């Protein structure tokens, strides 16, 4: 049976035990005994015990078998192939996979066919093993639980403990995800820094990962590929500055107008419209930037006699700024609304105009929140990917002129990692090092934003 039908089978067994358990405990109750829990808890207990361990085993086996198969398949590779130049486990395994799946490109060496034949055998064994163990575990577990049904058994407590464990385990997923992110990025980054010195990565001013064959360590071909990330960070910085110089004034002033001046009707009309901007997928913004904004900027630059790259930082930054406007405005709107009316009334009482109140009372009071909002917007801009991939190009120029083409950290990550790649080369690994710095920057910005809010927030009643 394949994994999916096994899943169904376990579900069926589990519901079978649920009915059995419920029925027999009802029978016990009808016979006059006093049950500790309601009858369906006895059924639930049997059903859960039949399902959960079996499903866990199924998941482990389903994930584990491919890993074991890969190990076993590598034993088939002859030593002379292993010793050969350009030997890559990934490529060999891909060769074997293809034969296993019946995709054949030309003649395959004898050992590939042998490995594929053995693979089919392992698959059959593994399927049988999976079917037998999972079904047995389910049946036996359910049976044991079913036999525990007696009036004194505290099945509700048992069921609640199981449910509680499931709930706690779900909340551990968040931690597992973080661990997964950190480890996947850190391990590969460490391998990258073994090939390329950290100082070159952080302070080098040329980014040129294109030369694939030129592995650095020991090959004596130093200097072909260079991994200086300064141009990428400069490009990210430049685009973010453009984006923020659009989104911060527009977002902040709209937030002030909407919360201080606008009538409720205008507010209820304009606010959702602005939030519509936040709901548009980034790939749509990228398309808009590449097809509408970039040619427009280029054409208007030309008419002014300026030399504008067809993929300019200005176009990407401008569109990114549009994307971030609702982000800035809704966060600022929240903090401005949190400033108590009493402060405004006091200012009016002293004779200030509305704008004086906003500038001299409301904004200073809301400033920490606004700064935090801007920092969060920066972190969004730094992490934004699709717009820069589609509109900012790949030229790693070290330039602060927004009319030049620049590239960013995220667009390099995407370019390097899209398509087939080997995990061994410095080029691939460099993407992980970039991702590591990206994570550090965005989390750092968020951390600072939170600290600012915590430290400077005025506590009004």
């Amino acid at each position, binding site marked *: 049976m394949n994994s999916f039908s096994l899943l169904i089978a376990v579900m069926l067994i589990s519901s079978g035990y649920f009915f059995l358990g419920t029925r027999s405990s009802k029978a016990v109750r009808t016979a006059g005994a006093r049950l500790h829990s309601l009858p369906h808890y006895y059924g639930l207990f049997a059903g859960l015990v039949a399902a959960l361990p079996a499903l866990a085993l199924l998941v482990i086996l389903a994930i584990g078998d491919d890993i074991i198969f890969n190990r076993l398949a590598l034993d088939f590779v002859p030593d002379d192939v292993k010793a050969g130049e350009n030997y890559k486990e990934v490529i060999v395994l891909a060769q074997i996979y293809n034969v296993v799946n019946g995709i054949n490109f030309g003649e395959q060496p004898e050992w590939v066919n042998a490995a594929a034949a053995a693979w089919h055998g392992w698959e059959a064994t593994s399927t049988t093993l999976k079917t037998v163990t999972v079904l047995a575990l389910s049946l036996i577990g359910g049976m044991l639980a079913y036999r525990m049904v007696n009036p004194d058994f505290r099945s509700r407590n048992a069921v609640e403990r199981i449910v509680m464990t499931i709930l706690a385990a779900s*909340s551990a997923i968040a931690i597992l995800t973080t661990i997964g992110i950190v480890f996947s*990025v850190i391990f590969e980054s460490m391998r990258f820094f073994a090939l390329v010195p950290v100082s070159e990565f952080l302070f080098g001013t040329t980014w040129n990962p294109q030369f694939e064959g030129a592995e650095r360590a020991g090959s004596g071909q130093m200097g072909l590929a260079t991994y200086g990330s300064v141009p990428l960070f400069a490009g990210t910085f430049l685009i973010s500055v453009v984006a923020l110089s659009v989104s911060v004034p527009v977002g902040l*002033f709209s937030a002030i107008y909407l919360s201080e*001046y606008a009538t409720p009707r205008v507010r209820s009309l304009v606010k959702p419209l602005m939030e519509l*901007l936040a709901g548009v997928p980034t*790939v749509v913004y990228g398309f808009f930037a590449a097809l509408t904004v970039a040619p427009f900027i280029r054409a208007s630059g030309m008419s002014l006699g300026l030399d504008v790259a067809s993929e300019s930082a200005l176009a990407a930054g401008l569109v990114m700024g549009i994307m971030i406007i609702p982000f800035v405005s809704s966060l600022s709107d929240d903090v401005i609304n949190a400033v108590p009316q009493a402060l405004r009334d006091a200012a009016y009482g002293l004779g200030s105009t509305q704008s004086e109140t906003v500038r001299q009372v409301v904004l200073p009071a809301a400033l920490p929140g606004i700064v935090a909002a801007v920092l969060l917007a920066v972190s969004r801009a*730094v992490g934004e*990917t699709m717009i820069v991939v589609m509109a900012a190009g790949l030229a790693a120029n070290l330039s602060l002129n927004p009319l030049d083409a620049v590239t960013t950290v995220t667009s390099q990550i995407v370019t390097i*990692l899209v398509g087939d790649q080997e995990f061994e080369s410095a080029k691939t690994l460099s993407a992980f090092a970039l991702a590591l710095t990206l994570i550090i920057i965005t989390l750092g910005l968020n951390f600072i934003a939170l600290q600012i809010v915590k430290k400077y927030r005025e506590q009004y009643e």
Partner: protein
Amino acid sequence: MSNAEKQMMPPAVAAERVAAGLAARHGRERRFRIYGRIAIGIALAFLVTLFVSIFSKGIPGFFQHYVTIEVTLDRAKLDPAGDLSVQSLYDGDARGVIRKALFEAAEASGRSGRKAAGKIISQGAEQRLRSAILDDPDILDTTQSMTFAVDDDVDSFLRGYIKRETPEKDRRINDKMIGYIDTLNEKGLISFRFSDYLIFGSASRNAEMAGIYGALVGSILTLAVCLVLAFPLGVATAVYLEEFAPKNRLTELIEININNLAAVPSVVFGILGLAIFIGIFGMPRSIPLIGGVVLALMTLPTIIISSRAAIRAVPPSIRDAALGVGASRMQTMLHHVVPLAMPGMLTGTIIGMAQALGETAPLLMIGMVAFIVDVPGSVTDPGTVLPVQIFMWADFAERMFILKTSAAIMVLLAFLILMNAAAIIIRKKLERRW
């Protein structure tokens, strides 16, 4: 000193001073208001520009030009083996049959004339003819009036993007072809109608045949995986953290973690998927299963945060009442609090799903960007999703791809608007104010 002076200022002088500055202050007030209006105006202008630019290209993208010709379906030519098998139809000369009909309709003659006329019709025509025969074998050996898409260059010409005035060597359509197109047009054989290729076609390098069907199915499969994982996990986490978790270091760590995950750029989740699921677990690339898992991890924080808010909004009196009549804490939670918080949880989930539907970058990392013609049949078949399809099409320079990309964007936006509308309706209709 200055204080004393101020105290001594007679009210009349003070009033005069205030009055003197009043005009300037009111001017500043007016300007400040205008800045606010300008800011909103700019934001809305951006919105309008964005939508106008997409819709102006997208609406024509839903249509394309078709040519209707009388095709004589000669059985001997189309089905040489005579068994109506797919192989036999492929061996048959569908191309020749269509070309012959086209030459007659366009009155094309001569070697170069036939060559030019042959370019008018899309390469997809043969496939269409074959599937028409498979659907209804009775049409063999009859003459049928059939409609085929025209080639994308011809379509661009008919739309006016390729101009007649351009010198012949600079345009992709030569004078002969224009002549034949005119002939077909005069006979009323060319029609401009709703593009069935866009909705039912799959990935293709030929603009006139390209469609979003495969990507749409991929998106649905990916979202299904994402929903199945993210909704139960998110709700369970929210319930645990809000009601049961002991206040200790570990709980605090989990909460910090969730907030941090919400701030991690989406591309990093793609790296996670690439390194863990493809690198370590050795799962295949490009499959909706991994896409769904990655998107689920990405949307989990959204769902958890909104579910917690929904649970918190259920008043304590409900809990107290349930506990008072003897329910256990778990029963209170599952029978009373969760059902009451469900509208809020669903709203958060739909918003999370809308995010996932529009997400592109992490899916590029796990290889869903591959050129896949087949429509995925299950979550383990290679596939792509709508935003990634848009990303790939955006790279192609053909005019018709630009139109179809915009049309695909409109479809994507329509889905997003539907989902957000559903979230708003659920919130308005079901959410209770306490």
